[in-house]
Every structure is written in C-alpha cells, then in structure tokens.
C-alpha cells in the first residue's frame, strides 16, 4: 500500500503562504449549501433513521418470558429485578422490571435471554420527571412493533466442532450447558424442581433409603432445559453443577 497523504504534504510553505485554497473550499461548500440542505438533522422535529438492532431501552415480550432470571444475572449494572405480576390468566408469575435510569443499554439482557423474550428496542427518548417514573415494569417494557431484528441471538460455535472440522455449525448458547447431578450431595429437597422456570426438572423416586422414605432425585429434561442455572444457584447443598460443553 502506498503512503497517500505524506507524499503530497508537506508542501513548500512559501507556496501555501496564502489562505486562498481553504477559502475556496469553504466557499464551495457554502454555494452547495445554498441549494442543498446542510447535513444537520433538526432533532426534535426530524429523526435519524435507525436500524432494528439499535440498542435503546430493553423491551420485553410478556407472553414469551418464562421468568428465568438470566437477564438479572447478566446485567452488569444490576438494574433488572424480578418482580411478581399477574399474567393474562391472573396467575402470579415472575417477570423482570428494569430501572432504565441505571440501564447502560449494553443489550446483555436481550443477548442472554434464552427464549428471546427480552429484546432491544429503538426507543431512546427516556427522560422522565422523577426517578420513580424510570422504573419500567414488565408490562411497560412491552414495545409496540417488536420485530425479529430486535432479538439478539447468542449463537456460538463449539471449539470442539472447529477441531472436528465442522466449523459451520452454530448452536444457541442455551442448548449447550446442562446441569449435572452429583448424587452423593443431593438430599432430594425438590428445590430445583420448584425454581426451574420451564419445568424441565422432574423429581423421580430412585429406591428407598434406610428409613424407608423414598429417595427423590431430579431428572433433567435436556430438551426443555434452557441452561438458566437457577437450579444450580438455588441448590442448598451444591449438588447440581453446570457441565460446560466445549
């Protein structure tokens, strides 16, 4: 590649002792701008076109959300909180609430949402009169006109796939890691089954213990599981462990 600017400049200073060329350049733009519009966008009246993947405030598709809490854990500014709301059938469910005042618009919640319920939205005019108004509840997070482009997919390629000569396979990050039971530690408390947002864990009886009580062990449905790690975090005896597929 060639040096392009340094070959032309610096020129002899005596040759450029005038301000003629800059003046002509400016005059050219001036004459152009008499007929054309300047590039300024008159912001409140005109708005720039923004693409679908623009990262404004987070949006939520209420019916798609399973309340797994991945967004809460992925949020770097800790602005998301799970609160209890009534869904359309009047049932109490956990859904995220976003404090937009703290939101850094990083898009992590949309990226780490296993069911693509969280989206990014192109809404960026978020000023409110009080801090309380900046709390966006699950219903308020809904964005009219959510399109497919607003979902952020988190697709990865496994290093093992690349090593095996299959580099074009892309897997969703949430189809890979599955919790694994360490049988010795489990006490059969059913907590994992309770916290699982997609009911992928079923407690199965596996024989009877010394006192004659049934031994309950979780069995994980790998198809249903969204690798949200709720069971791992909430296990009182650390009997569940995420097995990372690499």
């Amino acid at each position, binding site marked *: 590649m060639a040096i392009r600017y340094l070959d032309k400049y610096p020129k002899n200073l005596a040759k450029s002792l005038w301000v003629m060329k*800059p*003046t002509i*350049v*400016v*005059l050219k*733009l001036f004459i152009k701008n*008499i007929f054309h519009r*300047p590039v300024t966008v008159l912001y409140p009246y005109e708005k720039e076109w923004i693409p679908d993947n623009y990262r404004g405030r987070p949006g939520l598709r209420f019916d798609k959300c399973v309340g797994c809490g991945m967004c809460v854990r992925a949020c770097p500014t800790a602005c998301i909180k799970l609160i209890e709301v009534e869904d359309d059938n009047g049932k109490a469910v956990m859904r995220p609430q976003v404090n937009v005042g703290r939101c850094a618009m990083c898009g992590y919640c949309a990226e780490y949402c296993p069911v693509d319920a969280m989206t990014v939205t192109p809404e960026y005019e978020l000023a409110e009169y009080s801090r309380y108004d900046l709390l966006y509840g699950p219903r308020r997070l809904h964005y009219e006109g959510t399109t497919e482009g607003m979902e952020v997919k988190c697709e990865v390629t496994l290093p093992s796939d690349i090593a095996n000569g299959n580099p074009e396979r892309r897997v969703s990050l949430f189809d890979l890691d599955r919790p694994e039971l360490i049988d010795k530690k489990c006490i059969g408390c059913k907590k994992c089954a309770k916290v699982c947002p997609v009911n992928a864990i079923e407690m199965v009886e596996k024989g009877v213990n010394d006192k004659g009580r049934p031994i309950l062990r979780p069995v994980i449905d790998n198809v249903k599981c969204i690798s949200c790690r709720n069971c791992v975090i909430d296990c009182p005896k650390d009997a569940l462990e995420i097995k990372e597929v690499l």
Partner: protein
Amino acid sequence: MGELLDWINFGSDPMANAYYPFDSYNLPFDIGYQLWEILGGTIAWLIDLIFPGNSVSTWLMCDAVSTLLALVVFMLLIFLVAFVSTLIVLWEERKCLGRMMDRRGTMVGMKGFLQCVADGLKTFQKENVVPAKVDKMTYMWTVSLVIGVSVLVLCMVPLSSRWFVVDYDTGLLIIMAFFALAPFFILVSGWAQNNKYSLIGGMRAAELMISYEVPMLILICTTALMAGSFNINDIVYAQADSVWYIVPQILGAITFFTCAVAEAERVPFDIAEAEAELVEGWQTEYAGMKWGLVMLADYMRGSVSCSMFVILYLGGWTLPFIGDGPIPEIVFLLKAYVVFFFMSLIRAATGRVRTDQILNLGWKVFMPLSVFNLVIVLLLMTGGVI
C-alpha cells in the same frame, strides 16, 4: 388659539432654519425635523389649548428649540439605522457561517433574524454579576467606554452624502481616531478584572493594535492622497469620477482588508479573546448584559471596518455609470454586507494566528506592502494616469 394644523408647519424646509446645524442637506435631520414638527406642534397646540396665549408654545416652535429637539430625534434615527444594520450584519454572519460549516445557522423566525433579538432579551434578563475582587469602577467604566466608542464610531460613518453626522474635512481621520480608542480601554479592562486570562488578553489587544495601526493609517493616507482630501464625500466622489480605488490599489485593498479584520478583532486576529487558551480573553469576567453589549460592540466594529473598506476602495454609495442613484444608503449598506461576507468567509476558512506572528505580519508584510502601495499610487499620479 388655533387649529392643530396651524401649529404644525409640516414640510417646512429645515435648511431655511437659521440654526440649521449642517452645511449641506441632511436627510435624517430632515426626517427628524419633520417628525419634530408634528410632535412638537401637537405638544405646543395642547399646551396652548390648556393655557391659552402662553409663551411656551411659541418658544417650543421657535427656530432654535425645534432645531435642538429635532437633533435629538435625528440622533435616535441615526442610531436606530446603525443598530439595525449591525443586527443584520450579525445575522448575516451567523447564517453564512452556519452554511459554510455545513450547519443551518440561526433558525428563530424570519430566517433566523429574530435570534439576535432573542439573544439580546436573554442576556438582558441575566443577573448582573460583578466578581468580588475586581476593581469595580474600572471594571464597569471600561466596558461602557468600549461600547460607547463603538457606538460613536458606528454612528459617525456616513451612509451617503445626505446621511451623515459630521461632514468635516478631516472626517476620515476622526473616525479612525475613535476607532483606535477601544484597545486602550480593553487593556485597562483586562487589568481591572483581576484575572490572569483577562490580563493576558488585554496585553494582547495592545500588542495587536501596534501591529496593524501603522500600515492601516498609511493606507488611509494613500487614499486621501489620491482623492486629495480627508473628507469622505470627496473621497467617494473622486472614486465616482475616475475609478474605484480597488483597481489601482489592489494591494492596498487586500492589506486594508486584513488590517480591518484585525481592527475588528475577528478570526484570524482575535488573539485578545482567544478562547482556546484564554477562555474568553479580556471578556472572561463579563457576564450577562455586559457580555452581550461587548459582543454587540464587536459586531459594530466589524460593520464599521466594512464600511471603511467600502468608502476607501469600493466607491462608497456610488455606483459606476449611475452615480448616486435614488437610494444611495441602501447601496452603501449592501456593499458593506458583501465585504462582511468575505470577513465571514475568512473566519470560516482560517484559524487563529499567534501573537508573534501578527507582529511579524504587521511590520514585515503589511508595512512594506502599504508603503509599496503608496509608491505605486505616487508613480501613477506623477505619470498622470489618475
């Protein structure tokens, strides 16, 4: 007693007045005189209606008093026209600069003209802040003097042979003398503000002045030499008779233009208020309306610089082949605006020079150029070309 119309002798010739203050016909005084005839006649009639047969009414309408009070109206008129033309200059710069920089410029009403009014109102509403450690008297007085001198010199520029304030034989010199006064006040003001930036800014204003003033005066003298007079009327009509002086004095015109930019303290010679290093230079401690007035004074000086250029090199209010024309004032102002457009262009196209560079420029470039220009003019005159 009498009818109202008896008191108002509208349409009388002011020059027939024994106390007529000018040597020749003066349009703004004429307008002022007629206005006063209406106004004063009404007042006199009213007073006479209440106190019939008093002497105040007749005194009001006597030659001396009506001249005096017509002069007040005349002054207001002169100031108003000068002020509005300054606002137009301000608007022109903001709009043109905006377009040159690929933005829109002012947008408020009348293609942005009302932005000047809005800014004036805004600065007027601001609190009058006087910093605690300034030298209060000097601080207040110097800014008033800077503005006062600028207004004075703005009003003294004649717009045509019939629109003038003074018509002395040394009119040009008087204008230049008042024009050159402001840097002294700026220097004092920079000291009075008790601020290091202001102090440096004030020093720089003085430094700037000694660099451009001498070549500028030489150029003015050259023009006066060509026209054979310091009288502005004579200079303008001498150009109308022969040729605009920009043709024989093209070098001088360019030099004068540059000096005029420096005189008005505009980019690239705004070293006294260089915002990159001196925040706002000598204006740092002025806030609110004081700052607004200082800014206005800046544009007034810019407008005067352009007017001087028009008078000296562009034939003033005359047009080639036409002469005075029906409205010479408008011609004059339009010419000034065109010159000011080039000032805006220079402002958009250049940066700020350094203090030592402007001194070098003034004494090593402008000074020889102006002397060279003088020599050319002398050669032309001895050769009988002009």
